[in-house]
Every structure is written in structure tokens, then in C-alpha cells.
């Protein structure tokens, strides 16, 4: 099994001393859905945002260790973060597209990279909307403002705009926490289809979602990875008592 991301001894401190990561070691496999579970404040978001260097924007005091994507350390200051972010896309928990039209939201990432050809953009927009299972619902009103869509549609639009860049890795940070069950199901269905082509890391907003979608599960607790194994093992016979307590709902 190919390992897409190798995280070695990753540590992170914010300058105000809050939520940090301590010695994280993870080997994330290509074409699998890896779920990061654990109570809030455990470092899942921080971990995801380290993978595409979005943490550069936050008040981070210190990052140590290595994050190797396809063998290249992305924490290296020389890394081209623009290219990295195109390769490692992210969907946030708030379903809030950019204040542009539906079409523009998807073409935006391509346009800022210098793509001007209308045919290329048209094709990319249609493809991305199909992948995010949104095409049927919006193909007759691509020029409407994205804000006019429902919450679930907006989140699928956010997924589509990420897919339009043809990333290799997709990070999802509680992508369905603001959505109704039907929209949630649609996103989960898309993920199952998408993992054939992409490596997916998701921080689900509850453990049940992880159980539904994930191949691999990592349990984050207070900045540490307590246990990392296949979803089947984590949910049937976890090695650590804290994992056991968390998935059975004793805390969190």
C-alpha cells in the first residue's frame, strides 16, 4: 500500500500557548479515507492545516518535525505554498463559498493560477460539479450568487471548487457539521467515489461518521495521536482504554 503522507514527530505550538501538537507520527495511505477522531481541542484542525500550510496564517510560534508528502518535506521554508495548496485542497466546516457566482467560485482557483481559456474553465466547472454531485441542481443557474444556494449545496460547492484544481489530497475539516442528514449523506457518498482518485483525510464531526466513511482512523487526544489503525480495529477492539472510552461515549 502506497504511503502518500508521512508525518514524523510533528510538534506545534501557538504563540499564546493553546492547542498544540506533540510528537505526531502518522503514515497516511493513498486512496484511502483517513478519519481523525477525538474531542474538540485535540489538534485535528491544526493537524489538517499543517498539511497544506494554512497554519502559516495563524499565530504559530513553533513547528517541529517533518511532514513528507510524496517524500518532500512541506514544512521546509523553501516550499512553494501556492503549489502545495493546489495539491492539498481543504474543505472547511462552515459552508461558506466565496462571495461570487456559482461558476466563479469553481473557476476562481484556476483563474488565479492563470487559466484564461473559457473552454478549459467551462469543462473544469462542469466536471467538478459532477464530482461533488451538484451539477443536476445548479447547471441552469451557474451565474447566480453562490450565497443563494442552500447550506448543503454551498458545502458541496466548496468541495467542487477544491476538486476543480485536481488536487491529490483532500482535507475535510468537519465538512458536515452545519448540514442536515440528507446533505451529509450526499457528501459522504461523494467521498466514497472520490477516494478512488484522491487521498482523503477527514475530521468528522462525530464518531459515527468516521465509522461510516473511514478506512483508517487516528484518535487524537490533547495534541497526541493515541491510536492509529484500521477503522474496523478501532471500532471493534481498540488497544488503548482511552480510545475505547471515547468511541463508546464515556467522554468527549
Amino acid at each position, binding site marked *: 500500500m502506497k504511503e502518500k503522507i508521512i508525518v514524523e514527530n510533528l510538534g506545534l505550538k501557538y504563540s499564546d500557548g493553546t492547542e498544540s501538537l506533540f510528537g505526531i507520527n502518522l503514515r497516511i495511505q493513498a486512496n484511502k479515507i483517513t478519519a481523525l477522531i477525538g474531542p474538540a481541542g485535540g489538534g485535528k484542525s491544526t493537524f489538517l492545516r499543517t498539511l*497544506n500550510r*494554512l497554519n502559516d*496564517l495563524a499565530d504559530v510560534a513553533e513547528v517541529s518535525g517533518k511532514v513528507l508528502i510524496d517524500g518532500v518535506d512541506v514544512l521546509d521554508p523553501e516550499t512553494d505554498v*501556492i*503549489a502545495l*495548496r*493546489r495539491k492539498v*485542497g*481543504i474543505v*472547511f466546516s*462552515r459552508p*461558506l*463559498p*466565496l*462571495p*461570487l457566482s456559482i461558476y466563479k467560485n469553481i473557476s*476562481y*482557483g484556476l483563474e*488565479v*493560477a492563470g487559466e484564461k481559456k473559457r473552454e478549459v474553465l467551462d469543462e473544469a466547472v462542469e466536471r467538478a460539479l459532477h464530482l461533488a454531485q451538484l451539477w443536476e441542481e445548479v447547471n441552469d443557474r451557474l451565474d447566480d450568487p453562490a*450565497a*443563494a444556494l442552500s447550506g448543503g449545496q454551498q458545502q458541496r460547492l*466548496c468541495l467542487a*471548487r*477544491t476538486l476543480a*484544481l485536481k488536487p491529490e489530497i483532500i482535507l475535510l475539516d468537519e465538512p458536515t457539521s452545519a448540514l442536515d442528514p440528507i446533505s451529509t449523506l450526499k457528501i459522504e457518498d461523494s467521498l466514497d467515489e472520490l477516494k478512488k482518485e484522491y487521498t482523503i483525510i477527514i475530521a468528522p464531526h462525530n464518531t459515527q461518521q468516521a465509522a461510516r466513511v473511514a478506512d483508517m482512523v487516528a484518535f487524537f487526544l490533547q495534541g497526541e495521536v493515541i491510536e492509529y489503525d484500521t477503522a474496523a480495529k478501532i471500532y471493534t477492539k481498540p488497544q488503548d482504554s482511552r480510545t475505547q472510552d471515547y468511541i463508546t461515549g464515556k467522554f468527549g
Partner: protein
Amino acid sequence: MSGNKLKISEVLITRGIQFSGFSSILFVLMILYFLIAQGLPALTEVPLGELFNTRWYPIEEYYGILPLILGSLVVTLGASLVAIPLGVLTAIYIAEIAPSWAKEILKPLVELLAGLPSVVLGFLGILVLSPFLRDTFHLPTGLTALTGSLLLGMIAIPTIVSISEDALNNVPEIYRHGSLALGATRWQTIWGVTVPAARSGILTAIMLGVGRTIGETMTVMMVTGNAPVMPDSLRVLFMPIRTMTATIASEMGEVASGSPHYHVLFFIAVVLFLFTLIVNIVASNISSKQMKRSERILS
């Protein structure tokens, strides 16, 4: 007993607050009434053709207010050309780019500029700016429309900066992150997402800043030379001009009450009032549109 007393004091407080609220409306209405009552007779005393003429020389009963209106417009336009780019870019710098220590220095400084009395700015204009312009452009006098424009720009900038900056800060962080996560650079994010999202707030800021410059009196009176010359070409920037506000301020003290000159001065005030009213209406229309849009996004 005490319950009754409580009720009475409650009523008194309510009435007191109500009175304050209504009194400010009353003051505005009274100002409007006196302006119109004193200004409208000008229309009967001076023929319209003479009123909207190009010669202002009240001692010989030439009451053409066109040079004054255009004088105000020229200075306001010049000030806008200075203040809009500088103000908006400063706001973008403070809100989007500056590290926090620079923010902490810049924000109070901009507020300080806002609190600077206009007479002080005018003083600086006379002392520093106008000799500088005179020597640089070899002008007969440094008291010109350009001098007034530059200084009025300084007056509009704090308004434009602080309101634009608020608008930029109100842009949800997730827009910026979304844009950056899609591989946009910082500049692409600012121009492509953040500024367009704050567009209506920035337009409101510009209108309010421009509104301040139209009504500004002291600075322009001190530095524009106060010659009621009809602006007819770009040359006028380097010549003395006179604005509506400066005319009212300098002549009102010496005019005979009830004379045509007196009524014409009030008529100028009515015109000025209409200008600022229009600017304010446009500004508040823009900001109410903005509210509707943010409501839609949040819902």
C-alpha cells in the same frame, strides 16, 4: 407606595429619553426651516439668470454663485482624488497586511489625524504646503485650489480609512482562507475576494469622506486664496478659487441683515445643504444594501 413611585420614575426617565430623541429631530427641522426661510427670498430678490451667473461681486450687486459652486466641486474633486486611493490603500494595509505592531501604531495615528482641528491643518497649509507649491510650480501665489484639495484630502482620509477598515475586518475570515486554500496569493485574495466583499462598506466610507470635504470651511478659507474665479479649465487647480463654505463664513459677519446679499448667502447654504444631503442619502443607501446582503449570507 414604593411600587407607585417606581412607576413614576420609570415614566419620567422614559419621557426624558424620548424628549432628547425628539429634540435632535426638532433641531434639524428648525435649522432646515431657518435656512429655507432666509434663503428662498433670494430667488425673488435676485433674478435667476443673475443668481446662476459667473460673477460674484456682491458690493456691486453681482450675485452669481456658479464660481462658488464650481469652486467647491473642484476642491472636493481634487480632495477625492487624493483621499480615495490613499485612504482605501491605507485601510487595506492596516486591515490585511500590516503586522500587529504596525497596526497598533497606525490606527491611533489615523484617529489622531481625524481629531486634528481643521484650523491647524489650515495653518500648516499656509506655513508649509503653500510656499512649497508656490516654489515648486513657480506660481504667483501658493494659495490655490490644489493646496485646498491636498489639505481637504487629509481631512477625508481618516473617515475613509476607519470606515473602510471596519468593512474589511467584517469580511469573514473564511473567505480569505478559502481563497488562499485554492492557491491564490495574498494579493489575489485581497483584490479578488476581500475588497469586493467589503465593496459597499468601502463605498460608504468614500461617500462619507467626500461629504466631510464638501462641508469643510476653515481649511479652505485659509489656503485657497478666496478669489471667486470661474473655474474653466485644468489651470484652475493652480489658481486661487473660492468655495461656498468659505464665502458664507467670510461674508456673513459683515452683511446687512435682510439685504439681498444676506439672503443669497443663505441660499448658498441651502445649495450646500442639498449637496451634503445627496451625498448622505447615497451613502446610507449603499450601507443599507450592504446590510441586506450580509443578512442573506448569514441566513
